[in-house]
């Protein structure tokens, strides 16, 4: 009951007209900056942090919330419209979203992303308000072996992005894993595959790979095949809005995405990417039209987008209750808190309840604001695709290069962007799936680090990997996901022979 009262007071703060204006400005600015590829929510927040300093703590936190959600939504917009993921967690969105946009269904794709984000954000914020202490207690129990098991599960789902050839899909995945080796090995401090280039010591940046493969690779491919197979983009075909069928196919993925994203986001090392991978895989398995996957299935946008947003609210949980910044965004929020001499942590709820509840309430407000602001804009966004092709792609290239320049100033980074662009061209030409490479780069280093931490703690005893009940359960699910399709096939065959 206390929670309700506190939350009510939070809303009283967040709903003052001036505060609403801050939220609106925040959402608007966040969307505007978040649209730039390579500039995800974390960088958007970092860039706009100084803007919020001029306000009082509550006002600035409310604007924070707006920028945060705006930045997340901006990232998916570019994924869908121009196949340029703004951040690693919206990479999966690009897979189906961009296919939809190219076949004139950009409107529904953007709408299901926006409403899905809203649904997920709202549910996850409710979860944050009511269950934070319990979930955090559970999250803390996760050890390296449990994370490793979670990543094994995520690896199993990669095959959903393989397309029709396991050989080519695995090749893409392993090249990604190899790229993940580059740089300083976090556990031993030694450098791998850097060949004396200091810029490589920090490793290959995920957004550089994703933007290079997706955006630049695509520009090269489309330009190179203009005479053979001119790309036909229809900005709008059919309804700009979601149809009854779209709704019917979207609402379950939203809920499932939320259910995946929120708890995994709450884990100190869970992340936003893993839930999107899991969600994509589940939606593909459960879809009534699995054949549409790879050609623009709305479930493949709705689920991962919801998962991505729910995990964002999930990361706030360890931050607010324990003071643990477990994501880039959370780290910046922490910096924002500290500017006002606030230290998130076990004492924050007790010491500054009005502020915490104000923030939680403003997350709701920002969420509503986002939908209100963006749904009318969907039509305008989609019109972007009507820009003449030379200018559209020239613009995409400019934005891609700019995001990289703003995020990392070195020529080495731009060079990588170019090399990955050419690689993306070759992969399209020879029909290799692109997503597994990015997945490999994301998951490889994480899985390796957790495995080695677990084994270091157990002094090399591999039994430790399955001793924890959490790890054992996750590994069992992974195994089931891996062999179930074959069993089913065998069973079908068995039945067929019986007939």
């Amino acid at each position, binding site marked *: 009951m206390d929670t309700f009262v506190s939350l009510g007071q939070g809303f009283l703060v967040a709903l003052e007209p001036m505060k609403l204006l801050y939220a609106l400005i925040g959402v608007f600015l966040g969307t505007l900056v978040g649209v730039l590829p390579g500039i995800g929510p974390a960088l958007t927040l970092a860039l706009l942090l100084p803007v919020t300093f001029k306000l009082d703590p509550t006002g600035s936190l409310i604007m924070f919330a707006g920028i945060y959600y705006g930045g997340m939504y901006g990232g998916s917009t570019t994924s869908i419209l121009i196949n340029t993921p703004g951040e690693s967690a919206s990479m999966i969105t690009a897979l189906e979203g961009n296919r939809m946009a190219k076949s004139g269904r950009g409107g529904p794709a953007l709408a299901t992303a926006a409403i899905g984000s809203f649904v997920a954000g709202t549910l996850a914020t409710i979860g944050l308000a009511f269950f934070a202490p319990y979930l955090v207690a559970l999250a803390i129990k996760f050890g390296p072996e449990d994370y490793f098991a979670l990543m094994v599960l995520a690896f199993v789902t990669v095959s959903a992005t393989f397309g029709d050839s396991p050989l080519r899909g695995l090749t893409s995945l392993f090249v990604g894993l190899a790229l993940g080796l580059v740089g300083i090995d*976090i556990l*031993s*401090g030694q450098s791998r595959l850097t060949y004396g280039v200091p810029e490589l010591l920090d490793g290959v940046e995920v957004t550089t790979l994703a933007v290079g493969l997706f955006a630049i690779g695509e520009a090269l491919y489309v330009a190179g095949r203009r005479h053979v197979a001119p790309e036909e983009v229809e900005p709008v075909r059919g309804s700009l809005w979601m149809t009854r069928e779209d709704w019917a196919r979207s609402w379950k993925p939203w809920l499932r995405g939320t259910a995946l994203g929120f708890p995994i986001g709450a884990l100190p090392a869970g992340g936003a990417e893993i839930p999107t991978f899991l969600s994509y895989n589940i939606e593909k398995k459960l879809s009534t039209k699995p054949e549409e996957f790879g050609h623009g299935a709305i479930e493949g946008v709705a689920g991962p987008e919801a998962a991505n947003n729910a995990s964002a609210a999930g990361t706030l949980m360890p931050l607010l209750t324990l003071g643990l910044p*477990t994501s880039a*965004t959370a780290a910046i929020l922490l910096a924002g808190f500290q500017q006002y001499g606030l230290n998130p942590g076990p004492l924050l709820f007790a010491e500054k309840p009005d502020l915490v509840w104000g923030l939680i309430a403003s997350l709701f407000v920002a969420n509503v604001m986002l939908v209100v602001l963006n749904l009318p804009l969907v039509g305008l966004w989609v019109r972007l695709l009507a820009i003449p092709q030379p200018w559209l792609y020239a613009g995409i290239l400019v934005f891609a290069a700019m995001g990289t320049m703003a995020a990392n*100033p070195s020529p080495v980074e731009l060079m990588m962007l170019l090399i990955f662009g050419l690689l993306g061209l070759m992969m399209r030409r020879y029909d290799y799936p692109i997503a597994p490479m990015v997945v490999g780069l994301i998951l490889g280093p994480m899985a390796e680090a957790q495995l080695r931490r677990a084994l270091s*703690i157990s002094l090399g005893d591999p039994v430790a990997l399955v001793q924890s009940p959490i790890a054992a359960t996750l590994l069992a699910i992974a195994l089931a996901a891996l062999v179930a399709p074959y069993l089913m096939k065998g069973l079908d065959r068995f039945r067929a022979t019986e007939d």
Partner: protein
Amino acid sequence: MSLFHRAAMRGLLAAAVIVGAGSAFAQSDLKIMAPAAPGGGWDGTARAMQQALTGAGIAKSVQVTNVPGAGGIVGLAQLINQGKGDANQLMVNGFVMVGAILTNKAPVNLTQTTPIARLTEEALAIVVPTDSAIKDAKGLAAAIKADPAKVTWGGGSAGGVDHIAAALFTQEAGADPTKLNYIPFSGGGEALAAIIGGKVTAGVSGFSEFEGQIKAGKLRLIGVTSANRLANVDGPTIKEQGINLEITNWRSVVAPPGLTAEQTKALTDIVKKMNDSPQWKELLKQRGWDAAYLDGEAFGAFLKAENERVNKVLTSVGLVK
């Protein structure tokens, strides 16, 4: 998680300045390079200096640039190669850079710069989960002596100040530092979660990282690594418990190579004036930094001594060959 960490770094690289961009600035301007992403410790120091220098009217304008990468080595290389002889340029650095240079076999070295002054330091803290059987530094030392491999340490990146402190503690406890079982985590949050969750035996990091958790009763403070007890902290030093460990994470400023004695003195004077200004003192209080001003030859000697000490420790744990 390394990904988060990297994303955070990138995320914060916002204000970074492109390498090799021109440098046509007026003579009266001062430039401070933070060889790290905005938001981190070195960046915080650089921006605090900017605030104090302009606030106290010591410099007309101060520009902070960020050159992130590889524990500061990318920035250091730029200072040495492109900043040579630039009497308006300063760079923030600290303990971590000493280790990074050694472990990465960097082609550049801190001795190639012109040392200006040490500014601040922060003590590290060694903690254990509240329900741990280990109560104090002696207990921890005894456990290490029994079997160093079974005492797992959680902290920051390999070769960093946390790692070095753990190695020194092991050595002082009378065990073989090569047997140290140190588990680096890339984000502060992840390391804290592992320590609170009891996944590792002990944790070591900057005192401020643990402060909230110690106050909340989730972590037990074994000791701080400073020479004397910290003000406002109810906890012993490691040293007074009979383990001869004294290490702090210091931050300092250096200038490019190739400066004349007058230029060096002018820069030192500017930094000294800043250090004495009320604005700087106020900032130290706000951020909870401990002043540790040291300049001139004493600072040069200090740098050299730290370099030797770090080299020895890192060699003993096998990070430097």
